[in-house]
């Protein structure tokens, strides 16, 4: 049996003890193990933040990119070699502050990658600044008198942007998270997982305890029809976004399937030398 070991490398994470990101890492490794993915065909792309370090801690190809740009890089990779399993990852700042534009458009575009946001509702790496997902009145170094804005609602935005797979996990509920990641990878198209991954150092409000008290489990909600867009919207509003499980799944046509049949061969395997076409191509100009 494949175990998580297969995906572990010998780099020691720089995360603080107790950081929720450890569990995300382990869940991803476990999901890969259960899917028995080849290490060399697994591609992790991450942004900048504490979370962004994750691509360095797996025995896979790992691209630790720049702040907010994991998604365009991941999409470029997938379009070039669709045989890879591409996982994009990053923090809540990465995905919903500086990277929001890419997040929205990646969801719209529906390329077959999985995007995991390690959401601690704070900027961990910069040592505690407000994030777009921080709650109102939250006190941070950049909001010493309390944050006056309401947070963005990542799941609602994902639905509005056309993401065909929207789910939420929690670092402390590892089994569920593993399951969600497996389903997200199996989903043909863009899949989005918002993981509540507590920052034990800088977020003293949204703690493990807090989440345990507030999260409801959609997977246990038999009423929930995850194939209905309208229902997904309503469920998000009803729970105030505080749930784990799969909110929405819809099998729209994935980007590659929409491309013309000429794209059957992945770009990486294309023959680059087309000198025999030169004479035909120059004709356009004559």
């Amino acid at each position: 049996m494949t175990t998580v070991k297969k995906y572990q490398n010998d780099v020691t994470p720089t995360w603080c003890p107790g950081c929720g990101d450890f569990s995300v890492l382990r869940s991803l490794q476990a999901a890969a193990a259960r899917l028995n993915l080849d290490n060399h065909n697994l591609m992790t792309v991450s942004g900048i933040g504490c979370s962004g370090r994750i691509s360095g801690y797996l025995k896979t190809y790992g691209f630790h990119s720049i702040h907010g740009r994991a998604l365009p890089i991941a999409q470029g990779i997938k379009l070039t070699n669709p045989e890879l399993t591409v996982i994009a990852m990053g923090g809540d700042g990465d995905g919903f502050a500086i990277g929001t534009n890419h997040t929205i458009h990646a969801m719209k575009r529906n390329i077959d990658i999985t995007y995991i946001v390690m959401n601690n509702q704070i900027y961990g790496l910069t040592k505690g600044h407000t994030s777009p997902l921080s709650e109102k009145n939250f006190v941070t170094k950049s909001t010493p008198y309390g944050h006056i804005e309401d947070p963005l609602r990542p799941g609602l935005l994902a639905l509005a942007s056309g993401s065909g797979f929207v789910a939420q996990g929690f670092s402390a509920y590892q089994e569920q998270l593993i399951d969600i990641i497996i389903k997200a990878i199996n989903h043909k198209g863009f899949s989005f997982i918002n993981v509540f991954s507590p920052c034990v150092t800088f977020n003293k409000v949204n703690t493990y305890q807090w989440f345990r008290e507030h999260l409801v489990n959609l997977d246990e909600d038999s009423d929930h029809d995850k194939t209905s867009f309208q229902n997904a919207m309503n469920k998000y509003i009803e729970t105030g976004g505080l749930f784990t499980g799969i909110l929405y799944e819809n099998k729209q046509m994935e980007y590659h399937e929409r491309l013309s049949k000429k794209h059957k061969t992945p770009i990486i395997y294309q023959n680059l030398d087309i000198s025999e076409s030169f004479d035909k191509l120059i004709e356009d100009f004559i």
Partner: protein
Amino acid sequence: MTNNITLMIGGTQGEGIVSTGNILIKTLSRLGYFTYGFRNFSSRIKGGHTNYIIEINTKEVLAYGDSLDILIAFDMESIEVNIDRLKEGGLVIYDSIINPENYFVRRDLGFLSFPFTDIAKKYGSCIMKNTSLLGLLGRLLNIHSQNIKDTVEETYKKKGQDILSKNFTVLDKTYEEPIENEEIKTRYNLNTSISEKRASMIGNEAIAFGALMAGCRFMAAYPITPASEIMEYLSEKLPDYGGIVLQTEDEIAAITMSLGSSYAGSRAMTASSGPGISLMMEGIGLAGMAEIPIVIVDVQRVGPSTGLPTKHEQSDIEFLYHGAHGEIPLIIVTPYSVEECFYQSIQAFNLAEKYQCPVIILSDLALGLSRQTIKSLDKNKITIDRGKIASGENLEETKLDFRRFDFTSDNISQRTLPGFLEGIHKVTGLEHSIIGTPNNYPDNRKKMMDKRLNKIRKLESQNNIDIFGTTNSSLLVLSIGSNYGIIKKVVEDYNLPVAYGAFKMIKPLPVKQLKELTEKYSKILIVENNARGQLASIIKQKLPCHDKFHNLLKYDGTPFKLAEIKSKIEEMI
């Protein structure tokens, strides 16, 4: 009979002047003539004066003359704005629905009223006045109507048979329409000795075509004037070769998505102009740090900020030469003709993969958008050298990560691509170890910086300035981009006894060759379209002979006039 004509077609933007000019250029090029077309346009879609200057020659021509032989005007404004540009004794041709003759004082000019609109309306529709204009020009230049018909047919065939045959009728009727002035009928007849079919192209198309031939299979880009044609050409062609063009949400996505694609094994590119290039800076820095090959085209326009999007300038030179934040290996190639756009585009992809770094193709509006007849492209010069990509199968089995950033004698490391069985490694924008994991030890940092910065250093001793003209002159005139063509025309038309040269690469700066040139020539004039003398400044950083360097600068949005360069050269020799 003549070998050289400068003509202008003037009218209202959005009424078909551009395609008319293009058809004329195509027709003439097919007959073996050389042409150069420069469009004067503004940032609006319809309305407003626009004009298209076309230089026609029996020999290669890469610029247009300062003054016009013929001005063809659809409206009064075209005459008003441009009449002073006509040569002594030049000809104004105007649509007979306007009547300018009594308005203008220049009595030296010939005036020819022609019923373009009337014929068009009678035998087709108003917009076909452009076709009638083509017919008249065909007559004056002594081109057979069938030659024009062929080009018209190809251009408009998607519009359907009815439209096409109406256009043909308009053409025929135009050829039949009487012209009273006998002398005019022959004055502009072209010498017809030549016959080789030639291609015509704009710089942007040549870059895109070069990229296609070089094996570029991925382009992510965001539209912007004057670079969009590169994306447009590839959008049409790449699918046939299994490639993808993706219009992104912004330029940041364009550069980073292209980087992702290149990292995964494609040859990838993006293209933009000043504002977009500014936004790409962080991504370019990542490419430098992570040693990812990437080709970025900057077709320069007037800056700063939005500037004048439809006007010409060369003012991103220093910005690109010195950017982004921090220090990266970066190559900047500078094509100076449409043919060079093609060849250097191919070279750019080879350099990018050979040196595993970003390569910028620095072009400019006048080069990117001016349609010109080109000498035939040599397909044997198309080579694809992918540099040090490890062959996936031959990698040794290992429990360790692949040493993607290993130190080597030439400072270039082997690459593996995701999917290679034994090639697993990490990539990061942080300073890193040889396997790509973050590393902040001072020794490693210094070695990695030296590796990256030194790998392209040997290019400094290549000869990357092409030199022409009277090479034993004491004056050398240097330029980049489209200015080469203007200088060439000045030197040739006026037989100026000077040497002139054009850079093919400015970064790394060809320091060795420049040193030799400063030893050989007592004066060096650097001609550029910016206010600071940016190219000259870069050279002065390396070569302490500031007295030797002279600058001719222009930054009003228009290309140099021949006379401006001529008088500067004359002043200096």
